[in-house]
């Protein structure tokens, strides 16, 4: 019952189209590409990049992961254990590992939550959408850069000097670092917010603060929440590093299983972190879905 369209689809009307890429775009693009290439070539040589080394040495990874079972030329037979199969002893590894994970989550959680207010302030000051006063904009970005550049371990040392060790200095170190990172991420998310409502409120005489609260934040809330959860996830993993400066948590035990050559135990802990990260990710997906309109 179909009725063929009268027009022949294969011979539609045509008109000359403009050049695909303008001469100027081509020139700029070429220059940028050449520059990037040169920089990468330099970096390639500097980092002694060598895919052949990787191809030849892949057994090393294999041995690390699955152990070694090798007979040497002299007839000697060597077997070592690898990371797999993982250590499944409940009482010695898995159960304590859950406890360590819990502390790790606590550290990450406190570090993230404590940094929210300051992050928000820096984000609002560091976004062009919400801060139209250039000196303050640049100041906020500079402070964030400085705070961000200082490694978390240096913060941890500073606060250990103040309050001794344990999880507490780790939390403060994380929180300060996180203010800088989350502030930056949030400010850039705000930059990408739909400018329409912002303009509408600004033209109605709303102040920068009011524009931020009543136009930008509701628009970018899912982004901010996603980034918050991403930082929570990162902070949980960071306390893996801070663990090594006395902050406790599972990182410490990962490192110590490595020193004890118990890669299977290490892998058990890593798997527990994997489970943790997956759980946080599920939470993130679920929350973002709930928050999205329509």
């Amino acid at each position: 019952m179909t009725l063929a369209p009268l027009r022949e689809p294969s011979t539609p009307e045509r008109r000359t189209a403009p050049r695909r890429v303008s001469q100027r775009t081509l020139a700029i693009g070429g220059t940028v590409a050449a520059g990037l290439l040169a920089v990468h070539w330099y970096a390639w040589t500097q980092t002694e990049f060598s895919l052949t080394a990787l191809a030849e040495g892949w057994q090393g990874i294999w041995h690390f992961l699955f152990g070694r079972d090798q007979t040497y030329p002299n007839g000697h037979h060597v077997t070592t254990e690898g990371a797999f199969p993982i250590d499944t002893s409940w009482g010695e590894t898995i159960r304590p590992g859950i406890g360590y994970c819990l502390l790790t989550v606590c550290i990450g959680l406190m570090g993230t939550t404590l940094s929210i207010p300051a992050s928000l302030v820096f984000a609002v000051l560091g976004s062009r959408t919400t801060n139209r006063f250039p000196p303050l904009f640049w100041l906020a970005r500079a402070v964030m850069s400085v705070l961000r550049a200082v490694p978390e371990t240096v913060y941890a040392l500073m606060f250990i000097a103040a309050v001794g060790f344990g999880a507490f200095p780790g939390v403060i170190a994380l929180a300060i670092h996180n203010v800088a990172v989350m502030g930056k991420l949030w400010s850039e998310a705000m930059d990408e917010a739909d400018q329409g409502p912002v303009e509408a409120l600004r033209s109605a005489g709303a102040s920068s603060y009011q524009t931020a609260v009543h136009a930008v934040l509701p628009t970018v809330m899912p982004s901010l929440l996603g980034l918050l959860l991403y930082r929570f996830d990162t902070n949980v993993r960071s306390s893996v590093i801070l663990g090594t400066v006395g902050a406790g948590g599972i990182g410490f035990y990962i490192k110590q299983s490595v020193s004890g050559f118990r890669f299977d135990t290490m892998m058990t802990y890593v798997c527990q972190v994997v489970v943790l990260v997956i759980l946080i990710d599920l939470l993130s997906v679920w929350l973002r879905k709930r928050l999205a309109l329509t």
Partner: protein
Amino acid sequence: MPRLTTSARQLDTIDRGAPMLQIDGLTKRYGATSVLDGFAMSVAAGEVVSLLGANGSGKSTSLRCVVGLSRPDGGTITVDGVPAVDGRPIPDVAMVFQRIHLVPRRSVIDNVCAGALGRLDLARSWSTLGFPAELREEAMACLHRVGLADRATEKAGRLSGGQQQRVAVARALCQRAKVLLADEPVSALDPAAAEQVMRLLRSLADEDGIAVAAVLHQPDLARRHSDRMIGLMHGRSAFDLPAGAVDDATIEALYRPDAEAER
């Protein structure tokens, strides 16, 4: 405002019997409120049908159900005899959106070319650089038809509201679909441009045998350019009449009850 006479319709040269788009018993609820409640309409090849109704009466919703962007709660949709699969877009149906929905950072011509994506394989659509020259020429022709060929290389976001709406029409043209759904395609257009776009829709039906359904808020325009007019009220069609048979009282009744309900 001066009335421009519509170009002579070539109604009899095309077989207009077969419905190209057929909607039956369409139902759609959002939570407790029922938006569509057994809505039915059909559009034949070469026919221009205009869809009228008060704000919020469900015109956009019904069109969105046809292209698979809203999931109907009940009813059937058939395009060219083939039933639509729930939530699957139909390349044979092109839509001009009420909110326009161009990609603001892309050039006008690239936006128009994107309408043809459904018939391009990966090799010719991996990026805008892959678009074949023929497609770009066809897109230029579509832009000519809406009077915007001179703005082809500009970023779509830079155009005025009315210009963007015409680009959206051009994009739909470039899809070469058998059914064209246009959701208020002339709302942001000046009167001359609106006439031009409506004549364009008319000619698509007349010359190319396309089935056109347009949501319009201007009954005059609808009467002048469409074959049939359908009034949507309370989730179903209140009338479905040849354009000539729609009188002012019918129109007035269409908009009045809702206006009262909203007070």
